[in-house]
């Protein structure tokens, strides 16, 4: 076990997978210069510019070329810099990568990882802050991964690279420098589709993912001081998602809060909430609550940006009300 950052963890993961499998390579803007967040630092020295390929700013063709290279047997890792920029390549992702296997009757495999960091990060404003993970869960054929910790950013990225389907891999920009205890060695894999109970509790269930995990854990800490035990579940993967882990937890606690950074309207939290309502409705002790961003573009100025954030206080207050009402 080593104490390393979320950034170092994914760097290690990619390097290990590139050593393990010569078909794995990466392409995107500035990768030879370490990537926009340093998550590719040093890789070009080890693997050369053919496997750490610097591209022009041509998102559609970066994505499309990766689809083509995946169809013929390589395993590309595509870097989009920001999830906002990946929107220039949605056709290639949604119409091509996600559908090739199905529409060609199972002939095709599209083993590619599409890295597109999400989230609010130092007043980056409307076009560099979005959390669009929910969009991709709507698309059959895509796997969607949202690591919340350094250990998971290693284990999930490795699983994503080994996956034979297109994986939309969404790191959170505010987590790059956050350290965690990460298992050493190349065998640390975190399976896709398995949630993690980050903290056990019996009074209410808080389902979350990505950076919101740390906020939810803070809330759980505050609730503990008031004698309330919150169970915090990190989904880790949004598609496939671990329905059973959530249903088991809410069946025990009878109360559910879904906390997400994304706009709450049509966010993935709605899917979680609807599923729990359908499966456990009459057994719930209190109404389900979703917390997320209001439906507004993300503002630049810190006090404005803060309006859109879900805080530990808001999660804790919501949990207290739910527990009081049941």
């Amino acid at each position, binding site marked *: 076990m080593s104490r390393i950052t979320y950034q170092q963890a994914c760097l290690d993961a990619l390097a290990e997978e590139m050593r393990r499998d010569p078909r794995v390579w990466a392409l995107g803007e500035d990768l030879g210069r370490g990537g926009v967040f340093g998550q590719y630092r040093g890789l070009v020295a080890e693997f050369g510019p053919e496997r750490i390929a610097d591209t022009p700013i041509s998102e559609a063709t970066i994505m499309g*070329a990766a689809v*083509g*290279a995946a*169809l013929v047997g*390589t395993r590309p890792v595509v870097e989009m810099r920001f999830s906002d920029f990946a929107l220039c390549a949605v056709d290639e992702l949604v119409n*091509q990568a996600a559908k090739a296997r199905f529409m*060609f009757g199972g002939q095709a495999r599209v083993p590619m990882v599409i890295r597109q960091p999400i989230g609010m990060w130092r007043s980056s404003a409307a076009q560099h802050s979005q959390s669009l993970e929910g969009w991709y869960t709507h698309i059959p054929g895509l796997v969607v991964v949202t690591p919340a910790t350094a250990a998971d950013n290693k284990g999930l990225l490795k699983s994503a690279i080994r996956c*034979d389907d297109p994986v939309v891999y969404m790191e959170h920009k505010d987590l790059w420098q956050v350290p965690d205890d990460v298992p050493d060695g190349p065998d640390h894999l975190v399976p896709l589709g398995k949630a993690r109970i980050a903290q056990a509790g019996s009074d209410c269930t808080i389902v979350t993912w990505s950076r919101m995990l740390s906020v939810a854990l803070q809330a759980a800490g505050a609730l503990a001081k008031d004698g309330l035990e919150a169970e915090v579940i990190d989904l880790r993967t949004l598609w496939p998602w671990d329905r059973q882990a959530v249903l088991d937890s809410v069946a025990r606690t009878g109360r559910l809060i879904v906390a997400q950074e994304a706009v709450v309207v049509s966010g993935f939290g709605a899917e979680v909430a609807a599923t729990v309502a359908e499966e456990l409705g009459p057994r719930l002790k209190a109404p389900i609550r979703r917390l997320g961003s209001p439906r507004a573009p993300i503002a630049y100025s810190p006090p404005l940006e803060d309006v859109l954030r879900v805080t530990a206080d808001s999660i804790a207050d919501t949990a207290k009300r739910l527990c009081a009402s049941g």
Partner: protein
Amino acid sequence: MQPSPERQREMLRQMQTIRRFEERASDDYHGGAIYGVVHCYIGEEAVAVGVCSTLNRDDQIISTHRGHGHCIAKGADLNRMMAELYGRETGYCKGKGGSMHIADFGIGMLGANGIVAGGIAIVTGAGLAAQLDGKGRVAVSFFGDGASNAGPFHESLNIAAAWKLPVIFVCENNLYAAQTSAAETHAQEDIAARAHGYGIPGVIVDGNDVLAVHGAAAKAVARARAGEGPTLIECKTYRWRRHTERVNQPDFRPEHEIEVWLKKDPIARLVAHLKSQQGQLTDAEWQEMDRQVLRGIEEAVGFAKSSPFPKPEAALEDVFAS
């Protein structure tokens, strides 16, 4: 170098196969046995056949929504193609793709594509993989004049040129992007001229002359295999039929224009060429060739009709590989 007479007769047979296949597909579409939408390639056969006649089995191509010709020219099986159009389990895509998505990865046919310009970047990636692989494979993108106005065309030409990828960009300029004429939507008439901006050869060729297409493609393929990078080939051609077989929209093209192009029939042209060469093709041989082609189409229809529809549960299969 001109292909041998034997090879030219094979090219003729392929072109006639494309034409007869689509005549039948169109009839059966209007008869209700083929569903959705069918885009016919009739009139443009010389492009697919001329280009694919320069390729090896492991070279890769990507086609467009108008893809039957490219499939046949690359060597696809008519039975499985027709079964796909009929929506049957034995089709290339198990009935999940239809006319616009026929693929045969075993022969390097990476799929017809329903998105205009959708294949250009994918081929660029196949070319990139071929370069990494170092075995001399090339990748060919077929696309229309309409696609040449979409962003990925420009992005892909730039990347392929910058990295000297073994890719051949084949623009089938049939003068219309769906219903709208290229004359109204292109800043300049010749799409090949855009190659200059990316520092690669841009070649204009008579797309109704299969030997001319073959010659231009052979040169581009040799250049690509030698590691010298991509070529843009613009084939000036024309589709005889409307944009799609769906009759919900009128054909806006002027009749006199269609008549002019009907006279430039690429198949009649090759037939005349072969007949003019002593002993290369007789009337009787040509008639026999056509009869064989028609028999092959009839067999394909029989195969399709006798094949079962997919089971309903297949609608949810093949979404993920893992």
